């Protein structure tokens, strides 16, 4: 190891976004752990406050600051580190590092880039360098021409011949990439790609080739290993983040596997990486011809997946190699006896499946292709492909029960879906089998290797065979066991045999469970040990399979296990914040000397790191699987309140099977979840709430709306994060919505609520013990109610809330806590207008903002909650939010750039993919830091304002004045222009996109003559949204920051007018 490295700066990846998500919390945390082990002082820069890496005892110092050259330089100057790690924070950290290197910031400050030399990184990122480097060792890349203008792109396409693919250099997850079959498509996609990068590549298309990835590691002694290879289920053309992926590869023979492996090693050597890299290959399905598609000289989503797939901690090892260790000098962290210089042998197959949330966006294209749209992923482990993929399809959590046995998918044209896949592609294959398509026909349309299709067909065939029976007793044990070996759930078997088409066949599921247990058909628990049983594992990284006859471990049955249910796939509405909650619950369990047990299946998380608990079950969070595990663990109890909505929804069903739920009773959870029960409780407590009704006929809806008046909020009951929720502002909208989007019946009731405008939204995050509040945090939204709480900018402690309001919120919360006898974490959302307070929601579980308030208050709410749930002695924290002399600001991160055509507008349904939390000395500094952290920039010289209705126009008048005083050019659309003029503010008028007159807003956006766009829609009606859509969408497409909420715009513009970058304090968490 290098002895002169004493202090190291690690760059994080910021907020979770599409293409850069929780995997970098995992890799950063591992790197920090590796550095700490060597006694190195660590400094982390990452504004993502909900992560594990930004928690106590992971890094020595944490800066919640934007990962941009400006701020990183400031931190370097202040901290004077000896080294920096750039490859653990995704593309964000890498790009930032390259920029700092080009400005000589590292060399001027005597900071060494540890691990891969920066030139090697540049060689992999710059396409020209990359091609030249690989050419030097005769490694093939797709024929490709780098161009810097659209005209040159057209010329290049002529040389190569259509179809071609274009990519932009230096971008995350294939942003601005796509296939073009003609000049027209090239023009449209090309100009967009140029908005992200000065250079784009025009390449030969390899559609239909297999896509295979290798994770490669090299140390300073030139020792190289490939830790894992992975094969995409979908052929090339679908981004690896959008494809189902299996590890190890399944259709490659030894010669192909090792040819690509050798190429990987030749490449990593020639480029000179020290640490880890990911290499993507295209492989001809009819020969051993190949192309190297991409080299990522950093930890990536794939490397996180590979770490979880194999048990080999890539990020941890890469960090050690960066410090100068050799692979052979490190130990295998699973066996603890053998060396880390080896290649894992798997004795199972893993299957990764992406999770999309495209339904949450207005207008988004659902086709999947060469750029990434998925927001999360799951990894399923099995000992057959059928078992793994069926598990995985349940894990993605979109109401599917596996490959078969699902409800009919409506509005699908099978042939079209197979040829031009969307997020439903795998289910379209199932439907094709139902319609009698052959494997060959499906292959013709999809080019998915027939090996995969054949396996899927076997699942389908078994389903057909099972469906011939109508009682379980008639099904042979052999067939039942075969079904379980192929990953059929009790639900699927129940549906095949009992033929119920309801989604709620709880009774059937229990019947199947009882019957199969009586026949001795139960799963086995197996360890992931990196060496396929050749050496014993010292860790308990586990999965369940029916393809086995014995458990790898024996159970104590001492009642000392505490099971924590994880949060599943990252999705909009549930992501890294629940991982933080889960991990902190495990930490508390470990401290209390219980056996900590985690169930989760998200490879991007820290909670699925086998080091974090005594036993990690990397498996499903279904009722069936959780019960299988509980049967074995016979735990003291189960914690359902730290993993978001998935475990919360299981509480009652587990309780009915006599499972001990720790903390708040399942009955109380149900009383809070069930609208009717909760509402009557509030009425009894005389606590106000917006008027609402659950209605089952259209007539009832109209008459209710007549009572409460527009706007109203309409939603189906019991759905997480309000999918399909909608606000309607007038009768026409209501009719439209009821006609097209909603089924109204006794079985599908609709909940209609009064929607209160211009009200403040206030949140209470708290922990109670036996109904008495132990710790609490009240925070305030910058935006008025109507913006989903996950999309809102949050202030803690509240800055502009009446003392009377806070007092009343505390009283109400106490009454609710007492009435529900809460023991554990909970969250209540309030509306406040003047001092009129209404409760809108109450969740008896940790909320999204728990890590944020815990870190700002420096009081770990989850630790307190867990100790309460365990019955450990706890003391009331002494600190109160009223004592803080700083302010925490949590801001949402949106990923609209990746979601082609989606309208970047905020509504009652959540659309942000991540968040940051920063601490400021005052409100405006906090707002500025947090907004800079999610990609906003201080506008250079001009701002476009289209200010919406009169109320928001009024709100923005002052902002416009301040901007002009500060010397900004302020452009406005017609109405805003006139309004501002009446108020004595001269702005420059631009015409609406549809006016076809110059000067036009669109031209100004496209030519980047404005540096910020503020566009406030008057309301959420379709007409209004359509009108401004072009302004908003082009702002996104041309990479210009956009704000669509007046209160947020006003806060940001005020901050921008008052402060510059230089005014922002560079203070670490512990300095507040």
């Amino acid at each position, binding site marked *: 190891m290098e002895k002169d490295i004493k202090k190291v700066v690690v760059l994080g990846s910021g907020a979770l976004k599409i293409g850069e998500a929780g995997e970098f919390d995992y890799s950063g945390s591992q790197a920090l752990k590796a550095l700490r082990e060597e006694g190195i002082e660590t400094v982390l820069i990452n504004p993502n406050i909900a992560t594990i890496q930004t928690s106590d005892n992971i890094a020595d110092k944490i800066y919640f600051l934007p990962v941009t050259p400006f701020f990183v330089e400031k931190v370097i100057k202040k901290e004077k580190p000896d080294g920096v790690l750039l490859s653990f924070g995704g593309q964000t950290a890498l790009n930032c590092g390259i920029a700092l290197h080009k400005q000589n910031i590292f060399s001027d400050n005597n900071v060494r880039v540890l691990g891969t030399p920066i030139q090697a990184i540049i060689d992999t990122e710059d396409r020209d360098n990359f091609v030249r480097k690989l050419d030097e060792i005769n490694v093939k890349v797709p024929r490709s021409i780098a161009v810097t203008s659209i005209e040159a792109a057209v010329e290049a396409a002529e040389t190569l011949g259509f179809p071609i693919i274009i990519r932009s250099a230096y971008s995350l997850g294939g942003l601005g990439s796509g296939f073009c079959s003609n000049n027209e498509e090239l023009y449209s996609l090309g100009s967009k790609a140029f908005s992200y990068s000065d250079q784009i590549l025009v390449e030969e298309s390899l559609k239909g080739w297999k896509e295979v990835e290798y994770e490669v590691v090299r140390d300073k002694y030139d020792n190289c290993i490939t830790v894992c290879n992975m094969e995409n289920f979908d052929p090339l053309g679908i981004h690896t983040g959008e494809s189902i992926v299996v590890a190890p590869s*399944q259709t490659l023979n*030894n010669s192909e596997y090792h040819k690509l492996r050798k190429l990987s090693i030749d490449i990593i050597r020639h480029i000179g990486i020290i640490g880890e890299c990911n290499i993507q290959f295209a492989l001809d399905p009819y020969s051993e011809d190949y192309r190297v598609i991409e080299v990522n000289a950093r930890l990536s989503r794939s490397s996180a997946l590979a770490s979880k797939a194999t048990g080999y901690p890539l990020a941890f090892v890469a960090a050690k190699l960066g410090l100068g260790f050799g692979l052979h000098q490190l130990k295998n962290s699973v066996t603890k006896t*053998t060396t880390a210089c080896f290649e894992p042998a798997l004795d199972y197959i893993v299957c990764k499946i992406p999770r999309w949330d495209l339904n949450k966006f207005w207008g988004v294209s659902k086709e999947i292709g060469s750029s990434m749209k998925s927001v999360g992923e799951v990894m399923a482990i099995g000992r057959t492909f059928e078992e793994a993929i069926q598990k995985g399809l349940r894990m993605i959590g979109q109401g599917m029960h596996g490959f078969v046995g699902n409800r009919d998918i409506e509005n699908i044209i099978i042939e079209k879906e197979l040829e031009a896949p969307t997020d439903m592609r795998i289910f379209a294959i199932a439907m094709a089998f139902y319609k009698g398509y052959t494997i060959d026909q499906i292959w013709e349309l999809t080019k998915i290797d027939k090996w995969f299709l054949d396996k899927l067909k076997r699942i389908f065939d078994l389903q057909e065979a099972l469906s011939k029976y109508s009682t379980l007793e008639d099904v042979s044990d052999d067939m039942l066991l075969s079904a379980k070996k192929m990953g059929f759930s009790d639900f699927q078997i129940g549906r095949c045999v009992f033929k119920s088409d309801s989604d709620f066949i709880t009774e059937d599921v229990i019947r199947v469970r009882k019957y199969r247990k009586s026949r001795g058909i139960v799963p086995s628990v197996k360890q992931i040990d990196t060496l396929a049983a050749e050496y014993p594992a010292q860790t308990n990284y586990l999965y369940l399979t029916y393809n086995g006859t014995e458990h790898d471990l024996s159970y104590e049955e001492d009642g000392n296990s505490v099971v924590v249910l994880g949060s599943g796939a990252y999705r909009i509405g549930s992501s890294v914040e629940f991982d933080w909650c889960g991990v902190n619950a495990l930490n508390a369990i470990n401290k209390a000397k219980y056996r900590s047990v985690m169930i989760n299946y998200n490879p991007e998380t820290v909670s699925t790191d086998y080091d974090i608990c005594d036993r990690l079950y990397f498996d499903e969070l279904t009722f069936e699987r959780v019960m299988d595990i509980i049967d074995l663990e016979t735990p003291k109890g189960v914690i359902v309140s730290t993993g978001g909505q998935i475990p919360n929804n299981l509480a009652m069903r587990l309780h009915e099977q006599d499972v001990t739920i720790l903390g708040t009773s399942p009955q109380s959870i149900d009383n809070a979840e069930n609208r009717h029960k909760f509402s009557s409780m509030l009425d009894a407590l005389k606590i106000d709430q917006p008027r609402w009704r659950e209605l089952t006929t259209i007539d009832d809806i109209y008459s209710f709306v007549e009572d409460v008046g527009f706007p109203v909020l309409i939603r189906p009951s019991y759905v997480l994060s309000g999918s399909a929720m909608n606000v309607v502002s007038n009768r026409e909208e209501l009719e439209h919505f009821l006609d097209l989007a909603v089924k109204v019946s006794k079985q599908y009731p609709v909940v209609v609520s009064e929607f209160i405008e211009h009200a403040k939204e206030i949140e209470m995050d708290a922990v109670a013990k036996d109904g008495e509040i132990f710790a609490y945090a009240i925070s305030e939204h910058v935006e008025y109610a109507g913006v989903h709480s996950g999309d809102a900018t949050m202030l803690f402690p509240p800055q502009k809330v009446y003392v009377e309001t806070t007092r009343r919120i505390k009283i109400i919360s106490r009454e609710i806590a007492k009435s529900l006898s809460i023991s554990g974490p909970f969250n209540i959302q309030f509306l406040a207008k003047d001092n009129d307070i209404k409760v809108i929601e109450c969740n008896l579980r940790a909320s999204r903002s728990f890590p944020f308030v815990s870190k700002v208050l420096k009081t770990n709410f989850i630790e307190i909650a867990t100790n309460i749930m365990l019955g450990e002695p706890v003391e009331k924290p002494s600190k109160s939010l009223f004592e803080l002399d700083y302010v925490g600001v949590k801001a949402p991160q949106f990923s609209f750039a990746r979601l082609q055509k989606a309208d970047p507008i905020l509504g009652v349904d959540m659309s942000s993919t991540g968040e940051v939390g920063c601490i400021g000395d005052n409100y405006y500094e906090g707002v500025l830091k947090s907004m800079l952290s999610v990609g906003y920039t201080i506008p250079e010289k001009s701002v476009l304002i289209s200010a919406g209705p009169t109320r928001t126009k009024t709100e923005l008048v002052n902002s416009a004045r301040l901007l002009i005083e500060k010397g900004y050019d302020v452009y406005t659309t017609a109405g805003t222009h006139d309004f501002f003029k009446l108020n004595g503010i001269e702005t420059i008028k631009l015409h609406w996109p549809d006016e076809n007159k110059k000067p036009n807003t669109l031209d100004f956006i496209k030519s980047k003559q404005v540096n910020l766009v503020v566009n406030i829609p008057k309301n959420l009606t379709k007409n209004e949204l359509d009108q401004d859509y072009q302004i908003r969408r082009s702002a996104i497409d041309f990479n210009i920051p956009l704000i669509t909420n007046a209160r947020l715009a006003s806060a940001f513009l005020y901050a921008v007018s008052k402060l510059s970058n230089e005014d922002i304090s560079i203070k670490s968490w512990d300095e507040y």
Partner: protein
Amino acid sequence: MKTYKKVSLVLENGATFTGKSFGYEKSVAGEVVFNTAMTGYPESLTDPSYKGQLLIATYPLIGNYGVPIKEMEHDLLKFFESDRIHISALIISDYSFNYSHWNAETSLAQWLIDQEIPGIFDVDTRALTKIIREKGAMLGKILFEGEDVEYYDPNLENLVDQVSTKKKIVYGDGKYKVVLIDCGVKNNIIRCFLDRDVTVIRVPWDYDIFTEEYDGLFISNGPGNPKMCDVTINNLKKALEGDKPVFGICLGTQLMGLASGADTYKLKYGHRSHNQPVLMEGTDRCYITSQNHGYALDTKTLQPGWEPYFTNVNDDTCEGIRHSSKPFFSSQFHPEASGGPVDTEALFDDFINLMKKQK
């Protein structure tokens, strides 16, 4: 649903596993060993070093890419390591009944049936492997109903004699003449020589090598207990008295060691995998290697003049030796790979360079 014939695997310690048959239906006995490689079943099955063994694949999904075409190159089957299957039976977890590969012409099941080798699937191969890991390699038998067989210990027989060529065969017409003592050589060793301007003179294990003119002597891999190959050991003793380059792989290492006066022993459960790390002595270079052996050379018994060349980083076993002054060296692992990683193929170049120096 199709049903498959039940078949059981019985170990000498009494443990019994039940599975289903997908290969040839005949009861067999042998030594049960496991291989943790994730690819390369056509290569493994035709590796003569597996002679007499019932092979467990720890990777559960087998048969995915079928069995390659029988194309010939240099008088050798291009995609196999010998001209037939050498294992006595194959034990797996999940068989892929339909294969998919451009280079395949038949299924694994059909190939096993054609060569009269039993195949058994639907076995908890991990549980089975753990027994072998804990108790050591042991005898076992595959039993079809009503057809019992006796346990059989292949290590008590001269297996090398069964797999070695019966007559001298000459391959290629290269600059360097190498006499290859065939103890059960894998085709890829011959290919590696042919790619390097070598004429390969392949001779039986007990052949009088001194009747041949050669620039270098090579001793191949092969099955079983090395001490069975007394004739080869004696010939080697004589060869090691000379100065011509000598290179041994796998069993070749053990035979060179025995000829030099060192001793061999049986490993608990051997090394059969594609991921064995070996450190080159005196350096920080660690290589990932392909291996298949049940016996090893005891480093402690090395005689003066000999030193360890490579050592296994996981269990410190001998992975190769070299002579401190003469051009003799060996590897316990397989630099020719097939299957497995090809990182150490340069050892063949080293051997050529030694011959070049002497020319």
